[in-house]
């Protein structure tokens, strides 16, 4: 064994120890502490009684049924819209493509509470669409946008992000020479689509669909705000039970959830492994956008594309518009009657208003950095050593999805409220660092999931070639793997940063007087006596969305013109 190899091995071991220490300290230990709160002195008989109590509750049963139906319906509609949007961008020649590209990227930055509120600005009782519709059809109640269909509609245009991210990439890697070959053999266009293109992107489509199922099942803000009185979903029930101090019931529901999510993850990993060495050209000929020759079909395609564009951007534009409006007009006026920079001035000149934004930028940034550092190291290692230890490590990253976030936060408090040997005998409770540590834990599942897909997609021949030329592991990682997965890394950074900037449940338990995060300010503003605070909130979310959009556009630029990558999610 050469000195360099020995050094490499030592580095690997040290890194692994670090990762295991981090997971034990900030995930496993708090998790156990959290569970012990939920089930004080639990036994299996107790669990049975709790399960009975749950299944006896009418609204829990309704939530389960609603969630099942909504997930099925959402997967269907999102797949239709998501696939069409991707085809409008990267398969058919549609005029105004750069506009569509930005419009269809909206779901990546516009999510959760903000998005649901945006939908209500447009479709709610004082919304612009409602105003037009009730003028056309006076019999339509002003509360028409509520319940199952409203939630489904919002889901449909808020959850196409995965298609935008991964299906586009897959489509771009389809070797155009195969399409041309089929065409020259006389194949019809729809035959080419179904028999040539579809099989090539199928593994990606399946993986995207599985992840979409998770997202749809876990939906919280949209049903909470648009569900109305008769439609509620599981995540709402879990949080509600938690706030009723029935953490035991909440955990049982959350675990049921977790089991389904975990099986979906394992299923998608199997799909991923199977597709590992198939398809994809070594040097693909980039796909040529196809002009639809039949004018009627061409017109229809353009019509649908622009309709989707409108559906995507209308709610977000309304949110941005109201961020320039006087507070009193929010939720009262259909469109603001006057606009000014007043709200923005307030955010940037009032230190008390600006500080939470800065705190969150700092803590979310750190968490994204640590999260990427840990997962970028662990994922290739786990893929290389495909044994039980690697698999255990892999699955333990997903544990945060088994518990409601609140319980993880409570677990963190209990784990660190006394000197803890795992962190050198320090008391982390009340410490600035406990928030970024918790943030890191909660963003890791998705990072592992996506990075795994990205690493699996790297053609192993590159690594083998480099290795045969004597490149060290670190060198290979730095010069081959990292550049290939860089777009995914940047995207993940952007998405998770965006999420953390508005993370509430965990933040509310762990922050202290020195690091009050933005989400606390937002929630505080939403119920403040001072109406100006609500306007300030819209400024906050607009700023976050703009920042995330910049990151995503950057990632898109990075991923352009990268031939050799076979990023298959």
């Amino acid at each position, binding site marked *: 064994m050469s000195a360099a190899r020995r050094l490499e091995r030592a580095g690997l071991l040290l890194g692994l120890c670090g990762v295991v220490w981090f997971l034990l300290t900030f995930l496993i230990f708090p998790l156990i502490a959290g569970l012990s*709160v939920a089930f004080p002195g639990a036994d299996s008989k107790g669990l049975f009684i709790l399960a009975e109590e749950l299944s006896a*509750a*009418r*609204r*829990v049963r309704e939530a389960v049924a609603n969630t099942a139906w909504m997930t099925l319906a959402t997967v269907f509609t999102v797949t239709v819209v998501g696939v069409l949007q991707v085809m409008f961008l990267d398969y058919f020649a549609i005029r105004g493509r750069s506009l569509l590209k930005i419009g269809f990227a909206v779901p990546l930055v516009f999510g959760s509470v903000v998005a649901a*509120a945006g939908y*209500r600005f447009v479709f*709610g*009782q*004082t919304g612009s669409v409602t105003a037009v519709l009730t003028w056309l059809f006076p019999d339509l109640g*002003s*509360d028409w946008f509520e319940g199952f269909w409203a939630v489904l509609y919002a889901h449909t245009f808020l959850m196409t992000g995965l298609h935008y991210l991964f299906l586009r990439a897959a489509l771009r890697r389809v070797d155009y020479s195969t399409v041309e070959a089929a065409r020259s053999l006389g194949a019809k266009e729809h035959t080419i689509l179904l028999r040539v293109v579809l099989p090539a992107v199928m593994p990606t489509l399946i993986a995207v669909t599985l992840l979409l199922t998770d997202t749809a099942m876990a939906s919280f803000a949209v049903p*909470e*705000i648009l*569900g*109305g*009185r008769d439609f509620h979903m599981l995540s709402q029930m879990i949080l*509600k*039970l938690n*706030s*009723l*101090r*029935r953490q035991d019931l909440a955990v049982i529901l959350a675990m049921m959830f977790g089991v389904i999510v975990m099986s979906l993850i394992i299923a998608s990993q199997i799909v991923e492994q199977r597709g590992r060495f198939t398809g994809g050209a070594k040097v693909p000929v980039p796909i040529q956008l196809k002009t639809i020759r039949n004018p009627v079909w061409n017109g229809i395609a353009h019509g649908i594309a622009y309709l989707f564009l409108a559906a995507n951007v209308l709610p977000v534009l309304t949110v941005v518009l109201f961020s320039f409006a006087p507070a*009193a007009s929010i*939720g*009262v006026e259909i469109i603001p009657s006057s606009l000014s920079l007043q709200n923005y001035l307030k955010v940037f000149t009032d230190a*008390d208003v600006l500080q939470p934004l800065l705190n969150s930028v700092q803590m979310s940034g750190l968490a994204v950095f640590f999260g990427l550092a840990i997962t970028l190291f662990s994922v290739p290692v786990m893929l290389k050593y495909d044994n039980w230890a690697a698999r255990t490590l892999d699955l333990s990253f997903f544990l945060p999805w088994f518990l409601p976030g*609140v319980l993880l*936060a*409570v677990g963190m*408090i*209990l784990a660190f*409220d*006394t000197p803890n040997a795992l962190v050198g005998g*320090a*008391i*982390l*409770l*009340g*410490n*600035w*660092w406990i928030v970024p540590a918790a943030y890191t834990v909660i963003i890791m599942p998705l990072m592992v999931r996506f990075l795994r897909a990205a690493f699996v997609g790297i053609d192993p021949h590159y690594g083998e070639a480099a290795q045969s030329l004597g490149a060290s592991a670190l060198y290979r990682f730095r010069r081959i793997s990292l550049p290939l997965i860089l777009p995914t890394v940047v995207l993940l950074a952007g998405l998770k940063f965006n999420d953390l900037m508005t993370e509430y449940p965990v933040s*509310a*338990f762990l*922050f*202290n*007087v*020195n690091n*009050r995060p933005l989400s*606390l300010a937002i*929630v*505080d*503003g*939403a*119920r*403040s*006596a*001072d*109406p100006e*605070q609500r306007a300030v909130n819209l400024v906050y979310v607009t700023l976050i969305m703009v920042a995330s959009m910049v990151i995503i556009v950057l990632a898109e630029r990075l991923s352009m013109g990268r031939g050799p990558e076979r990023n298959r999610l």
Partner: protein
Amino acid sequence: MKKTVLTSLAGLLALGGVVEADPLVVYSPQGGERAEWIAEQAAAAGHDIEILNAGGGELFDRLLAEKNNPQADVVFGLVDMAMSTLKSEGLFQSYTPTWADGLPDEYVDPDGIVHKFWQTPIVIAINTDKLSAGEAPKSWLDLTDPAYKGKYVVGSTSWQTTRTFLAGILARFMDENGKVSDEGWKFMETFYANAILANDGDSKTQAYASGDALIDLNWFGGAYRQAENVGYTVELIDTEGGTPFIAEGIAIMDGTDQLDQAKTFVDWFGSPEFMGAYATRFNQAPAHPEAIALAPTEVQEKAKLVTAQPVDWDLVAGRIDGWIQRIELEIK
């Protein structure tokens, strides 16, 4: 409160090595301009405090979770039921502030731990532009009348206001052991079936803005504020059987290492002078009669508008979670 190594290090660096006493950490659900104003006033009066504010529900859970190593020195602003539970969990220590003298009995803790400084009725307010006083409900129990179907909004059960009026209603059907009768639950079912439900502030406002909802079940100041935001004339109903009042309390944490500072702060905070100033600034009625006397006449007038419903909060505190659970899982 003890600071941790890192933050103290940062503090030391910032202060260039000058060691200063730690500020008193105060947990309160009062945020925004109120928190800012209180902090300013406290600083002016020579109290070095840091207010940590979060939602009432989160703060409450957080205080319980931090039980082994409390991060707060003083808690204020949580309402009766929450303070009562925290007290029974042994989180507070007893201290009778200087202003306890002259405080009406209902605001004084017989155990000398939690003292109430501010109170507000949860009221039935009506939009008189569209509903005349004659048509308005006379009591909370009238709301199930078919005439009021779809005319009032019940907010999220995590809101303090909603929890309080639900408790106020169910307390009327409660026996001496705290058990609610079947009749009470029947009432609750109709009460929910007749209501417009809202999970968040925006959808509540919209229900009134669209003119569907005309009866507002709100805390006193909130009822006026909503009427102003939406733009209607509001009138409060002095209901038969009274209306539940909630009072916010203040208490010193058992684990504080700055007891003297905490005591001085509590004495100052609840004093009629500061409470009077608070009432003037935010148009709210204090609990202390001397503070009421210092409040603007408008506040004094409004304080007489409605009659209080007697509620045994200690009895309710232990049951409210179970009641809300039944509402959330079965009734809603």
